[in-house]
């Protein structure tokens, strides 16, 4: 792995055990054990994916529902472990898989900023420094001490986005989140992502909006049913994908 590579995905396969419903209780477990139904159907969400993403690159993933895009993002984020193959990641990751994942609804916005910052591995001292900037970006000045359970979904998303992007990560994972908030905030998000990209952050982006993908990405990978169909320049692949 050269120092130019941000993410290296090597022959990765991911297999899930699909049981029609999960065995949640002991009783069920024994019933199934007796009936010999503990053997699940295997489902390969990803098969033999190899990708290399360079530093500073904006890399998109396209594909239909169930193509394995989100699974791939989760593998890169380190949330899932691949069944086969290896994934190497060079640098810190800010996952934007779902905004506000670590929020506690009972706590106020202020407390949640520190909690969510800690989830991303930042100390409260670091968060002290960025606190005002986060609140300003998310435009929540009047709601700092309101429990987030009273927030609207847009406010929730704004705060989550502000926290995740305020400290420049080496790698940013973006999954369908640009669709939140009003158009003004969307523009702001896009602006922030542009800023990060020009600052050398590697971005891994999933969007069903082909225009967004075309506009932002340098290269795109097309996934279908867990297999890698093609990798190439954004425009070319997106046109092929649309013409499918």
């Amino acid at each position, binding site marked *: 792995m050269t120092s130019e590579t941000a993410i290296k995905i090597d022959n990765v396969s991911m297999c899930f055990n699909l049981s029609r419903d999960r065995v*949640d*209780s*002991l009783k069920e477990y024994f019933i199934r054990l007796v009936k010999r139904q503990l053997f699940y159907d295997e489902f390969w969400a990803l098969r033999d994916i190899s990708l290399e993403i360079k530093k500073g690159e904006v890399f998109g993933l396209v594909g239909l529902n169930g193509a394995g895009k989100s699974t791939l993002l989760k593998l890169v984020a380190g949330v899932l*472990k691949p069944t086969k193959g290896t994934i190497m990641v060079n640098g810190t990751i800010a996952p934007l898989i779902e905004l506000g*994942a*670590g929020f506690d609804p*009972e706590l106020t916005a202020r407390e949640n900023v520190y*909690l969510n910052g800690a989830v991303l591995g*930042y100390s409260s001292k670091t968060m002290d420094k960025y606190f005002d900037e986060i609140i300003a970006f998310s435009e929540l000045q009047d709601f700092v001490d309101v429990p987030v359970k009273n927030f609207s979904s847009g406010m929730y998303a704004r705060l989550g986005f502000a926290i995740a992007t305020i400290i420049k990560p080496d790698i940013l994972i973006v999954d369908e989140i640009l669709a939140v908030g009003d158009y003004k905030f969307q523009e702001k998000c896009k602006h922030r992502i542009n800023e990060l990209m020009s600052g050398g952050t590697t971005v891994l982006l999933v969007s069903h909006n082909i225009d967004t993908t075309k506009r932002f990405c340098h290269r795109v990978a097309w996934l279908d049913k867990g297999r890698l169909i093609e990798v190439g320049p954004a425009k070319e692949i997106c046109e092929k994908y649309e013409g499918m």
Partner: protein
Amino acid sequence: MRKLKYILLIATVGLLMYLLQLKIPNLFFSIEENEVWNSARRLILAFTVSILFCGAIAAVINWKKIRPYLSKLYKFRSLLYQLVKRDFKAKYKRSFLGIIWTILNPLLTMLVLTIVFSSLFRFDIENFPVYLLSGQLIFSFFSEATTLSMGSILSAGSLIKKVNLPKYIFPISKVLSSLINLFFSFLALIIVMVITRAPFSWTMLLAPLPILYTLLFSLGVGLILSAAVVFFRDMMYLYNIFLTILVYLTPIFYPISIIPDRFRFLVSLNPIYHFVECFRTVAIYGGIPTLWQNVVCCLMSLASLLAGLYVFYKKQDRFILYI
């Protein structure tokens, strides 16, 4: 091959320790009449020391493998702090008396139990409220820490699914939250001791030791439970029943002397009994726990912790598929 090496090392060091004790019989504990009991003690003591010694050596040799885990925990120390803080805040946020409940709670439970047991069932115990509260303190620490840890992975599910975190941070945070509650219960104990004019002794300063034993033991049990409950939700209900049984098997509100001699060993198999005894010795009786007591407590808490870490480590990658 490597495993064999460790087993040999443990055996050799253990044997040396055993021989040393034969050479100097009164080194660690006073000799009793029963020879079988004496050799059993020697054997257990020798191998405890040996396993600890070899564990330390293994840790030094494998330091490179262990280090990333520790540095990850260090990186997320602020998360640990935030989680504990959140638990503490969230618990009493909505109540009128707030934090005062942490002291009131053990006091009121003790009051009820004291009334019940000093008028309905009479035991020959000097200063019953203090006896009761001190036992209850350790037991509720254990039961709270383990019960909270058990649900910690499930309730952190949404986070675990999205962010790559060291997952054992959740059970640890719950055990630490319980430790804070224990601190307030301790204040309640001191208040009761002042009210009942119980004698204070400097050995109370040693109280953190039995608390540490209980903490490590609870953490081990909590790690196992938190992993188990992800795969079997029934564990929650089973464990509740188990805790109810355990209350009666622990001499919290009765003296150990009411148990017939031939059943005593059953109680002595209960780890909590040892922690409670150890705690009472230092906190209310003004004594110092014997070396043997310490060895037993140490052995049980370390065994529990190691088992917990092992089970958790082996199962943690599969959590996400079942949450």
